């Protein structure tokens, strides 16, 4: 793609609102324009989502006024959010992690084992998070210290861990009916005024991660490492450690996501997490985080996840057959990428 096709974002906006007399003035001096400029990726994603929903609603107005539709999306969406958000960090850092589905399965397996053994589910959650942390560290160390391509190495780890789960369990699932009476279920997975409570936890996680990304040393270093690892090193940043940390973060997120998915279904399947690989990756990029690293948006990724999870429900609810789901998935992804391409210039 030629450089000339990318719009120069500065010239049209850069000269217009310079307030004379103030030492620093900039297009972003006007709060609204600044807000739009700083958040154009996530706002673009929001626009895609709104247009998509409008199309669905025009196609079938009645279904979209029923609460059930939203309730079902709000039950499954949180699981995706817990992995989409850490993946934004990974992609910003210039890496990719395809091993999170297996980590979800592995960590939730540990959760299931602890609960099945009669311990409190809270202990199970703690065990799952520890498992996720360790697996994230293992995958991260393999990529960073082993000097492997994260694309291939994490793909390999995904098969390896999933295979391990299947071998040991011989494909058998674990039922956890005792969960329904536990405090952990009430706090993490029940309903509150008809709203699935896990969405509140997911939103809290997104807000925390957005702060971590924009207002914390970790986020700042992740962006710099993804942008220019050589200069980050020259300026005294431990580049390898930062890279390992983003994989650990994904491991933790995947563990939480896996645990939530088990709590929703009261059952652990050896395939737990498998179906999330492609929707979650699509969410990150639909959300406006570019593939080349250095920049990204956590909130955009979250909106991307909402968009992707509404596609399937929306297509069916709009009266189209299930065959259309994949087609619309692809259409939304391509349109979003074209939009972001136009929306953000890449600086070198």
């Amino acid at each position, binding site marked *: 793609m030629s450089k000339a096709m990318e719009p120069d*974002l*500065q010239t049209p906006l*850069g*000269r217009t609102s*310079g307030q*004379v007399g103030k*030492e*620093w*003035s*900039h297009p*972003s*001096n006007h709060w609204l324009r600044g807000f739009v400029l700083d958040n154009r990726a996530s706002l673009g994603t929001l626009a895609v989502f709104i247009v998509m929903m409008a199309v669905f609603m025009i196609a079938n107005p009645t279904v979209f006024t029923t609460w059930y539709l939203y309730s079902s999306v709000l039950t499954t969406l949180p699981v995706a959010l817990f992995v989409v958000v850490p993946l934004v960090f990974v992609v910003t850092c210039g890496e990719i992690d395809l091993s999170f589905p297996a980590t979800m399965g592995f960590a939730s397996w540990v959760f299931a084992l602890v609960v099945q053994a009669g311990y409190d589910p809270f202990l199970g959650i703690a065990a799952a998070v520890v498992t996720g942390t360790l697996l994230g560290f293992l995958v991260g160390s393999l990529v960073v210290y082993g000097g492997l391509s994260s694309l291939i190495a994490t793909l390999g780890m995904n098969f390896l861990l999933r295979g391990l789960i299947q071998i040991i369990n011989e494909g058998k699932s674990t039922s956890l009916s005792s969960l329904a009476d536990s405090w952990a279920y009430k706090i993490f997975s029940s309903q509150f005024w008809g709203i699935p409570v896990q969405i509140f936890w997911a939103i809290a996680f997104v807000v925390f991660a957005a*702060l971590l990304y924009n*207002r*914390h*040393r*970790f986020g*700042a*270093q992740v*962006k*710099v490492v993804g*942008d*220019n690892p*050589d*200069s*980050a090193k*020259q*300026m*005294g*940043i431990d580049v390898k450690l930062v890279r390992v940390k983003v994989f650990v973060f994904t491991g933790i997120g995947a563990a939480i996501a896996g645990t939530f998915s088990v709590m929703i279904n009261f059952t652990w399947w050896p395939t737990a997490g498998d179906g999330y690989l492609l929707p979650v990756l699509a969410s990150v990029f639909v959300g406006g985080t570019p593939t080349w690293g*250095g*920049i990204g948006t956590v909130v955009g990724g979250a909106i991307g996840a909402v968009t992707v999870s509404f596609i399937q429900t929306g297509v069916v609810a709009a009266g189209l057959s299930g065959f259309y789901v994949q087609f619309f998935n692809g259409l939304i992804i391509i349109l979003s990428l074209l939009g972001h391409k136009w929306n953000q*210039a*890449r*600086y*070198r």
Partner: protein
Amino acid sequence: MGERIIELRDIKKSYGQVYALGGVNLSVDRGEVVGLIGDNGAGKSTLIKILSGVVKPTSGDILVRDKPVNGWSAARSRDAGIETVFQDRALAVQQTIVRNIFMGRELTGSMGWLKVNKEIEEASRLMREIGFTSKVFTPHSIVGQLSGGERQGVAIARAIYKQAELIILDEPTTALSLTETAKVFHFVRQVRASGRSILFIGHNIHHVFDIADRFVVLDRGKVALTADRSEVKSAEDLINFMEDVAHPGGLPGLHDGAEQRA
């Protein structure tokens, strides 16, 4: 001139059989701009690497404020107040000016949360100090939107942040347009006005001539000439001299100056 910030005495550096530096004497005083000139392969880069502590000399003494130092290293060099702006500038171009200035030394409060306002305040102060202000951009601007000269300004602002006393600028005007070069000169003059010293390394003799108080010409690993600005009439003099060094002949006036200095 005031206090002597750093002095190199008879520095030699060899890579195997090859001598990159064969006994170089160089000193920088407080508040002066020293221009280091030399052809490709004259040993400029090696000298910079030694000053910034990246490379250790084979032999010779390094004196910081007239005191000899042992175990010279990159950390020691920075402790001594020497900051180097390398040729590639080491900027993360998709990040803001603030993020680049505080790269690797973010201002954080408890738990590692950024002190965003403090960082902006400090960045503004640093940029003002080198006269790097504009109506078009703020500390929040993305470095990739800046011109080459402005990017050099970000790198210089980052270098002076830790009360650096000597800033080494490695080819800061290479690949810059005339106006951008003027900008860099402006920054350099501001840094000098604030009482700091600069070692300005350049290919382009005209650039170095415009900015430096003192010239050091390096040739094949040796100092071929040290001259104060008053001793050199024009950039052409310097160019003639360098050609002379390459093809022996002579510029008597300049040689006298060099001998007096030594």
